Structure formats: structure tokens, C-alpha cells
């Protein structure tokens, strides 16, 4: 608890102020991010991008937002009204709340109050981020489900499957950080990255590498980076919103400010995961160069600059991906998540833990590590490349049209409108016979 003694000391006005500032910051950042994305993509595609509103078109997003506010607010006929309205609220609120434990900088003085540049910190801060981002999925699922539309439903299901799949990979990649830092508090993780790590190469001498976990725990960082793209439904993993397949995905039926809220949530999530990546792997708000090239770099308000610089770089990464890569196919995407990221991550955790134990525990020599890790690796290889792999068995039962129920499969067959009544007529006898079959005795 001592490590967090700096927190929880703020007066109420400071808490409120921090909250408001972070909120405004996120909204503004979103507007800027949208502009930034459009502009960057435009540059990549050698076109000007938004340039009418404000300098360099900076106010384009604001204009879009205002326009949305004055659009008609539609609620489809088949929608579950309450959930339909609730869904964007959940998405937005969760996205913003996640930011409460992101450290922007060290302890500074605000109107005479010594306070950290962070809304708050918890012993379980990382969990809070994960929890809120997981809760955000509810917004997506409920939004898609409550729309009463096939596209929305499929989009939301895909989104949910995607988010939870990549959440596993993301969660596992964080384990390595926790293992090294020994804490779940974000501020302490940042602090743990302060000191450089001395690597001893025996006769080759030793050198100090920066304490950033992105370098120390490179595999984790790579996995984290990949999985957050999937987690935020961004290209090339933007399958839930694949226009060519699903129109707009889960928010097909949303319009006006509700749509804007989803949009907001998505971009906030981008910022959040960038901030998380910064915090967990890139040294947080600490100055982006090893050593103290400038003694005051990590003091006062300067770190906020470093922090946002890092975020901007990461955001650019997002945009770059979008501008460069085509969209994945769904099966490719799921395969990447489940069959590559998860096992690689687990293996990496075991190896890392083995190395750490080996360095701490005298009885546990390097050969032991080699033995355990090696055998583990061997087993893995043996399992995954076992020669007699069975061909995939086609499911015995076709997925479509069971008893006249519409079963939206991957190869969605949309019944023509003229048959709607016929289908509904068929449903009754099918349901009636369903219960009598298999009667025994």
C-alpha cells in the first residue's frame, strides 16, 4: 500500500477537475484522432483529405459531430428500445472510465497540492482497464442484438467473438509485464521501467539496455500490439464492421448521436490501448531516450509531452496499418488469435518465468531451465505437428433451414421477401412436431 500513498489524497475539487480534464481530453483527442486518421490516410493515398473546416481541416470532425446531432434519431421497429438506447451509453462510459488509471506523469503541484498526474491508481489498476474494456463489449453485443436486424446481430457477434478472442492474447501478454514488474499498479509499472536492465554477456562484457518492457519483453509487446488492434476492431481486423459483408456491423441501425457515441467509444478505445501500451511497454510518461540526456526531462509537466508523443506514434501505427493492409478473412483472423498468439504467449510466459526462477533460485540451475523449457517446447512441437492429423470432418448436419427457422450461417442465405409469410406458416407445424418426436415408452 505504501507505494500508492501518493494516491487518494486529493481534495474533492481536484478529483473532479482531474475527471473533467481527462474527459475533455479524451473527447478532444477523439476529434483530433479522426482528423489525424483521415489526413494521414489521405496522404498515404496521395489525396488532400479534409481541408475545408478550420486550418488544415482540423474542425472537420467537429462539424461531422454537430451534423450527426441534428440527424433524425431512429429506433427500428424490431428493436428492444431500452437496450437499444442503453448500448451506446455502456460503450462510451466504459471506454472513458478505462482511462482513470493511466498515468500521464509524475507527481506535480497543482494549486499547491502535490498530486500525481493520474486520476487515480489502484493495486489492481491493470485489471480495471481490462475489466472496463471487457464491459465495453456489452455495449457492442447489446447494441447489435437489440437492433432486431440480421446484419447488426451478426456484426455484434463477430465483434464479441473477436474482442474476447483477442482479449485472451492481450491478457496473456500482460502477464509477462506483471511477472517482471511484480505489481498491477500502472504507476508502479511505469516506475519499474525507469531503471535500465544490465545485461551481462560474460566475457563480452556487459551493457545496459533501457528499462522499457517493449525491449525486455519483446514477444509480449508484439503480441500485445497485434491483439490490441483486434481488440479495438481496427483494420486489418475490422471484420465486425466489414462494409462489404455486413454493411455497418453492429451499429448498422444506429443514427444520430447514438452512432456518434459508438464512434467516440471506438476512438477512445484506440487512445486507451495506445496509452496502455505506452504505460506497460514503453516506459509510460518517461522521457523517450535511455539515460538522462536532460535531467529535468522526467520532472514537472514535461512527461505529459512524452506521454502524448508516444501515444501519437502508436496512433499513427494504427492509421498506418489501416492504410496499408487489406482486411483479414474471418477464419484467418481467428486462427491467428487462437492458434498463434495464445500458444506463443503461454510458451513465452513459461520460458520467462523459468529464466527468472533460474536467476533467483540457486538450486534451479540453467540446465534445469533448459530441460523443462526444452521438453515443454518439444511436447508443443510434437502436438502441433503430429503427422496423422485428421482431415476436418464436415458436420453431419447442415446448418441451414432447420425446420424453417432462419439460421443465419456464414454463407448467409437471405430469404426473398415474398416467402416471408410462407416461412412463418411453416414454422408452426415444425414447432409442433418438434416436441413429439422421440417419445418413448
Amino acid at each position, binding site marked *: 500500500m505504501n507505494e500508492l500513498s501518493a494516491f487518494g489524497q486529493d481534495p474533492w475539487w481536484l478529483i473532479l477537475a482531474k475527471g473533467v480534464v481527462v474527459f475533455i481530453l479524451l473527447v478532444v483527442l477523439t476529434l483530433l484522432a479522426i482528423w489525424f486518421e483521415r489526413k494521414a490516410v489521405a496522404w498515404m493515398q496521395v489525396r488532400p483529405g479534409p481541408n475545408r473546416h478550420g486550418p488544415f481541416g482540423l474542425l472537420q470532425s467537429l462539424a461531422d459531430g454537430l451534423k450527426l446531432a441534428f440527424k433524425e434519431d431512429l429506433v427500428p421497429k424490431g428493436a428492444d428500445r431500452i437496450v437499444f438506447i442503453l448500448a451506446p451509453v455502456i460503450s462510451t462510459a466504459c471506454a472513458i472510465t478505462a482511462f482513470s488509471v493511466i498515468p500521464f506523469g509524475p507527481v506535480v503541484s497543482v494549486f499547491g497540492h502535490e498530486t500525481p498526474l493520474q486520476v487515480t491508481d489502484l493495486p489492481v489498476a491493470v485489471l480495471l482497464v481490462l475489466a472496463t474494456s471487457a464491459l465495453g463489449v456489452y455495449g457492442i453485443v447489446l447494441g447489435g442484438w437489440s437492433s432486431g436486424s440480421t446484419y447488426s446481430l451478426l456484426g455484434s457477434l463477430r465483434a464479441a467473438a473477436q474482442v474476447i478472442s483477442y482479449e485472451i492474447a492481450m491478457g496473456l501478454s500482460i502477464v509477462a509485464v506483471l511477472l517482471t514488474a511484480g505489481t498491477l499498479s500502472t504507476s508502479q509499472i511505469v516506475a519499474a521501467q525507469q531503471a535500465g536492465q544490465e545485461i551481462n554477456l560474460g566475457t563480452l562484457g556487459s551493457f545496459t539496455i533501457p528499462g522499457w518492457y517493449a525491449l525486455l519483453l519483446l514477444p509480449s509487446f508484439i503480441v500485445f500490439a497485434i491483439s490490441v488492434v483486434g481488440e479495438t476492431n481496427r483494420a486489418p481486423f475490422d471484420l465486425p464492421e466489414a462494409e462489404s459483408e455486413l454493411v455497418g456491423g453492429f451499429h448498422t441501425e444506429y443514427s444520430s448521436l447514438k452512432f456518434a457515441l459508438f464512434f467516440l467509444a471506438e476512438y477512445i478505445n484506440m487512445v486507451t490501448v495506445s496509452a496502455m501500451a505506452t504505460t506497460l511497454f514503453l516506459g509510460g510518461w518517461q522521457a523517450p531516450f535511455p539515460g538522462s540526456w536532460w535531467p529535468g526531462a522526467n520532472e514537472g509537466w514535461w512527461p505529459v509531452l512524452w506521454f502524448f508523443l508516444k501515444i501519437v506514434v502508436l496512433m499513427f501505427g494504427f492509421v498506418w496499418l489501416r492504410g496499408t493492409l487489406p482486411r483479414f478473412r474471418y477464419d484467418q483472423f481467428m486462427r491467428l488469435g487462437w492458434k498463434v498468439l495464445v500458444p506463443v504467449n503461454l510458451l513465452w510466459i513459461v520460458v520467462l518465468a523459468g529464466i527468472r526462477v533460474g536467476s533467483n533460485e540457486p538450486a534451479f540451475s540453467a540446465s534445469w531451465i533448459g530441460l523443462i523449457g526444452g521438453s515443454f517446447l518439444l511436447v508443443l512441437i510434437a502436438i502441433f505437428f503430429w503427422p496423422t492429423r485428421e482431415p476436418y470432418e464436415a458436420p453431419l448436419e447442415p446448418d441451414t433451414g432447420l425446420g424453417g427457422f432462419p439460421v443465419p450461417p456464414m454463407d448467409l442465405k437471405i430469404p426473398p421477401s415474398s416467402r416471408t409469410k410462407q416461412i412463418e406458416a411453416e414454422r408452426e407445424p415444425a414447432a409442433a412436431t418438434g416436441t413429439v418426436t*422421440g417419445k418413448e415408452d
Partner: protein
Amino acid sequence: MNTLLLSADMPTIEFPGIDYLALSPLLIVIGAACVGILLEAVLPRGRRYLAQLVLTIAALVAAVVLTIVNIVDGTNNPVFSMTGPTGEPVRVDAVVMDGPGMFLMAVIGVLGIIAVLLIAERRVAAGGSFVAHAAVAADSQADADQSKLPGATEVFPLTLFSLGGMMLFCVSGDLLTMFVALEVFSLPLYLLCGLARRRRLLSQEAAMKYFLLGAFASAFFVYGVALLYGFANSVQLVDINTAVRDSGNSQVLLLAGLAMLSVGLLFKAAAVPFHVWTPDVYTGAPTPITALMAACTKVAAIGGLLRVFNVAFANSGDPSAASLVWEWRPLFTAIAIATMVIGAVMAVTQTDIKRLLAYSSIANAGYLLVGVIALGEAVGATLFYLVAYGFTVLAAFAIVTLVRDSNGEATHLSRWAGLARRSPRFAVFFTLLMLAFAGIPLTSGFSAKFAVFSSALDAGQVGLVIVGVLSSVVLAFPYLKVVVLLWLSEPVEDAPSVSLPSFFTGTAVAAGVAATIILGLAPQFMLNMVEGAGMFLAK
């Protein structure tokens, strides 16, 4: 301490020393289950059956042998032990390998082997009792297409998991381990119930009922654990007992926790009023699984009850705290009486052999509860009863699997009429088993009843014994009805035939019948064993 997570500079944690030899039966069974899963993953379909069968039987045999080695060694201590900061030993007995616990483990292992033999049977019904692809919708065309495929081999690892959970359940030293073990043995059973090859809908329905009610009961169990944790500030059975003795704590928590805990345990033991699932599930489940449940689950559930009540809530030898026994005993007596009576009476009205055996198993749960309530010296008698009942019921269900017609097992009693004409040997066996259930001397059923009732009377439970004997007269009626049908009735049209058992089922029947006779004729050796098992380790 307000935070769950330990910070890095915490003092190093003491780790328990583990007696791996004592733990080895559990490790082997659970480990073999994991290996079984891997085999499922890597072996081609054709080779899985043999590999799984060999693995399963070998693991169970090894577990039984090691348990016996431990018993002979006289290992009678907590498996986890460690030294506290001041040097004195501190218990962390998540697992307590005491005499009764190891005995129960061995019993579950042996009964499990027999049940696995039944599960492995593939000749009596082509492809076995289990469906090939459980995910295929029942009664669909695809289901008909797969009726010729050999059954799923996943049942073996599932069974092993279940048996491992049961073993752990009997030796758990704290309620948390007990809860985990409870789920480890229940969850595979839920699945296994739904895997019948024939009458899939019935089977799936049974699985759903069992699952929903089972989950309901385990929720009660865990809430009871929570309340008892609030009461005793620990979930170790011995600590709860300590807290019970010097009860400055809230009695409300204790009694509510005890009640909730009991609901979970009594559900598994199929005691009234938590028995409603039993007939349905026993009927719907594949018969080998029914046998497994009737034999092994019963052993585990009663084993758990015995341990909880003898270790945590018994406080024998301490008259000042005897009030607790006074608190729960009358209620349990009522439950035991209701279980015996309702089980017996309902059994009378049944027309399906599996349902009949299900109600009989409820009634037998009542007799076992008599042993639980009697506490103390009755532990040995209860163990004896479990052994006797387990073997008999296994053999009975094994025979049920053999009586078949074109629709699979013919379980309706009217179909059994006059079966003795066609296969007298089978009828003799079944009659013997029925007589054992009815408690006729020279069968294990009599020995078991005598053992339990005599020790219950020793403990002063007169009323229970009287209800017990009277209900067993009522219970004898359905068994006699079956015997009458077998021997004295005219065979029906297109009567089912008794399939020639293969090695597996034959062995199971033989083992069950042999145990029924041996425990009836010469029970002394088993009595010595249960006596030798001694008492639950409470200190």
C-alpha cells in the same frame, strides 16, 4: 490487508511439504485423465478405444494398488504439512489421507474399474452405449446416420476425471477442496448422462435436469462454505470443529452454513427431499453411467458426509459443546427417515427397472444416512455398507444392460416377464442381487444392514433402526415383484432376450455377484478392514 494481490517485497511464503506417495493415487487418476484427453487429440479414431481402455484401467489399478500400499504403510496424516514461523508444525491439510479416506478411495477405485468395464462394453450393443457425436441433434437424419458408428471414446477420460474427483472428495480436509472435488466429479457426470446412444432425447433431458439441479445444489454448498468461513474464519474442517467447540461465534452463521452445506451433500447422496433428480437421471442416463453414479457417486457423497459430520460437526467427547450435535441430529434423523420411507414406498409403484433401482438407491441412501447420523463407531459400518451396496448395484445395472430387444435395453418391467425361462443363469444372478437388496441373510445386503443398524443402535438411534427395518420390508416388495416377474410370469410376446455378455460385462457381473455372495457369507475380513480403517483424522 485490503488488497488481494501481494506486493513484490512481501516476506517469502512458506510452502507445504507434500507427501507425494500419499497423493499419488489422485495424481495418477487425474493425470491419466489428462493423458487420455491428449490421446483423444493425437490418436487416429480407430486406435483410441483400445488405448483409452488400457490407460483408464491401468490408471485405476495403479491408483488402487498405491492406495492399498499407503493403507498398509499406515499413512495416517495430512498430506500437506509445513512448519510455521516458530518451528511448530502447521497444518495445511487440503488433503487428509486418513484410514476411512483411503479406504473410500480404494473402494471408489475398485468400483470404478468395474464401471469402466461396463462403459467399455461394445459388443452387447453395437458400438457401445454411447453416442458417437453428441453434438448431432437427437432424432435427426444425421443422428440416424451415425447410429452405426462406434461410440465416443471421450467417455473414458471423463470417467477418470469423475472418479478422481470422487476420490479427492473423500479425502478433502477443507471445504474448498471439497467443493472443487465435488465439481470435478459432478461436471463430467452431467456430460456423461447426456451421451446415451439410444433414447437420446431422454438422455439429454436427464443431463439437463441433473445439471440444473446439481448446479443448484452446489450453489447451496458453496454458500454454506461461505457462511461457515464467516463463522470459523477458516474452511478447514478441523478449524471449524475448533470454532464449534469454543463457540463465541455466531450460531446463526454456523447453523445456516451447516444447513446449506448439507443441502449440497445430501443432493449428491440423493436423500429426500433432494432426491427428485435421481429417478429421472438414472432412467435417462446410459446404463453404465447410471451404474457408475449409483455405486461410485454414492460412495463419494456418503464419504463426504461422513467426513464433514465426523470431523467438523461431531465434537465427540466434549460434552459442553455437544449441543451442536443436538442441533443437527434431529433434522438429519427426519431426513433419513423420510429418505428411507419415501424411497421404499415410491419404489413399490415403479414399472421400469431403472427407476425402481433409482428409488431403491434413494432408500439405500437413507440407510447410509443412518450410519452417518450414528457418527463415531458407525463409520466402519457405513463403509461396509457402501462396499456391499456398490458391488451389488453395479452388478444389477450390468445385468440391466444385457436385457435387450430391438429398441435397445428393455427396461420396462413388463418386458422382463418370464425371462428366467430363456436365461435361467441370468435370472439366478439377478434374483440373488434382488435378495441382497432385500437384505436376506447370506447376501451382502444383510451383512450391510446388520452392520449399519447394529452400530446405529449402539449409538442409541433406536427410532432410525426401527424405521429402517420396517422400510426395508416395504422395499423388499418391489424386489420380490421383479423376482416374481422373472420366474413366475408368462413371457410376453416378442420378449427381449438376454444378450450374451462379453468379457467386460461378464466380468462386471461376476465381480458384483461374487462380492455380493462373499460379503454375505464371509463378511469378517471386510469388517476387519473397515475397522482397521479407523476413524477420521480430526486433530
